[in-house]
């Protein structure tokens, strides 16, 4: 509803300066609302401090155990799919950090299906605040910092132990990889939520692309079947989160015989993902019919 009203306003006053004002204020309003809702949830979580400490640690540990499993594997082998432990740690840390950032900001998107089912989404629609910001900030969970911390630690371990011939481009590649990667994962969160407008109780499908994607990217592409690698390069472009940029840093061959310059594409891919996810979100919201409850 709010979306449609905004669109009508834009159409009516196509080129007055007021329109620019309306559009910009919507974005600002969205970010502001996100901040307010997130702060509210932050206070609410802090009411149970013991539980917060435990869940934050749990969030740290849940991903740490993934890395412990890799460490246990390397008790028995020297290389997995031709990659050494520090090399895998770089892939793991990059993906984990990027995913952690996306999860912190957008991780609540997978609750959309529940909101559609129980009708609480309606409440969000009548508020003069972008729905996306409200859904994303819902139950904002600072404990998700645990996941980021863990990713950064493993990334740090990789950078210390790896012997990389650093060039300015390779150095620049690190922040570029983390931010674009987070943006790509965030777009997957939004697209997954848009899908839940249609399939209301299928949040697990979304999980297999987000959490599953993150697990997949923790390992080198060389161990997976070609078709799977093709799928996460060209269909759901997760390969741009860490595989391609990290393999550039490591000076390794890319999978599928891709050319050198693809390692620099993550920001472009992230932009495209956001465009598509935004379109999906809009059409999902337009198609939404309340349950009436």
């Amino acid at each position: 509803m709010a979306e449609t009203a905004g669109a009508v306003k834009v159409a009516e006053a196509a080129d007055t300066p007021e329109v620019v004002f309306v559009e910009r204020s919507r974005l600002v309003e969205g970010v502001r609302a996100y901040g307010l809702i997130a702060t509210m949830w932050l206070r609410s979580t802090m009411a149970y401090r013991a539980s917060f400490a435990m869940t934050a640690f749990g969030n740290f540990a849940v991903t740490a155990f993934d890395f412990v499993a890799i460490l246990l594997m390397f008790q028995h082998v020297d290389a997995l799919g031709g990659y050494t432990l520090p090399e895998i740690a770089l892939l793991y840390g990059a993906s984990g950090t990027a995913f952690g950032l996306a999860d912190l900001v957008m991780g609540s998107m997978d609750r959309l299906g529940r909101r559609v089912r129980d009708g609480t989404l309606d409440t969000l629609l009548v508020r003069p605040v972008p729905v996306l910001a409200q859904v994303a900030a819902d139950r904002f969970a600072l404990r998700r910092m645990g996941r980021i911390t863990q990713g950064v630690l493993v990334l740090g371990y990789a950078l210390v132990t790896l012997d990389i011939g650093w060039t300015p481009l390779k150095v620049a590649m690190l922040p570029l990889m983390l931010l674009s990667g987070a943006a790509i994962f965030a777009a997957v969160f939004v697209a997954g939520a848009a899908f839940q407008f249609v399939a209301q109780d299928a949040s697990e499908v979304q999980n297999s692309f987000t959490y599953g994607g993150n697990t997949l990217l923790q390992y080198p592409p060389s161990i997976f079947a070609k078709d799977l690698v093709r799928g996460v390069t060209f269909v759901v472009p997760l390969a741009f989160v860490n595989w391609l940029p990290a393999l550039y840093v490591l000076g390794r061959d890319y999978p599928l015989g891709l050319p050198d310059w693809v390692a620099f594409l993550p920001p472009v891919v992230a932009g495209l993902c956001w465009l598509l996810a935004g379109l999906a979100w809009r059409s999902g919201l337009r198609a939404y019919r309340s349950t009436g409850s």
Partner: protein
Amino acid sequence: MRLYAVVAAGGFRRYATYRTATAAGVFTNTVFGFIMAYTYVALWDERPQLGGYDMPQALTYVWLGQALLMTCAMMGGGFEDELIERIRTGDVAVDLYRPVDLQLWWLAGDLGRATFHLLGRGIVPMLLGSLAFDLALPASPGVWLAFLVSVALGVVVSFAIRYLVALSAFWLLDGAGVSQMTALAGMFFSGMLLPLTLFPGVLGDVARVLPWSSLLQVPADVLLGKSTGWGLVEAYAFQGGWALTLLLVGRLVQSVATRRVVVQGG
């Protein structure tokens, strides 16, 4: 007894209602199954016979993990969130003066849930896995039967752990922290990430005697034909022992906790 059968059937039907969710869950289990299977292939390519398993056995272990993840609620899930909520709001007081045993009531419901998840979310990923990879599934119906008994015992152990988790809400009011810690322990010590036979030294020894190994490692070894004859009796005794111990501890904690309910006044 009939009452609990009805409760179990209710638990089954309750989860059977969510068809899209079940299909979505099957999809997720299959995706994770594929990812893990490829990592195991890479690992066993380097070290055949690692942990006492050959490649088909290791791959069977992966898909079994996906099939039992929800059945044995390795990462939690099912009744405990609901019970925690009832404890937090004080609704549990109503449950306590019903003429049924609180623990058996929730156990019956959880057995129904587990049965549904075994059928709904276990079989299809296993079939898909067996199409894509060479698995070591037993041909003898006896082994499958022995496996099912082991899974049932695993579900009871899982329930007993989660019941204790739920009861902690009497003291903590918010169960999220304890639930998450238990989910972590469940995932790691059940052998979900890696078979416990690959855990080195003391860590491996400890992991194998903790109750969580009943949820995946023990049933997997039964299916893979590692526990036969006396070994099978030992496996059942291990699972049954933990099930009984934890259920009894649950009763004890419950009786202490119910006195607290009165204090809290609902």
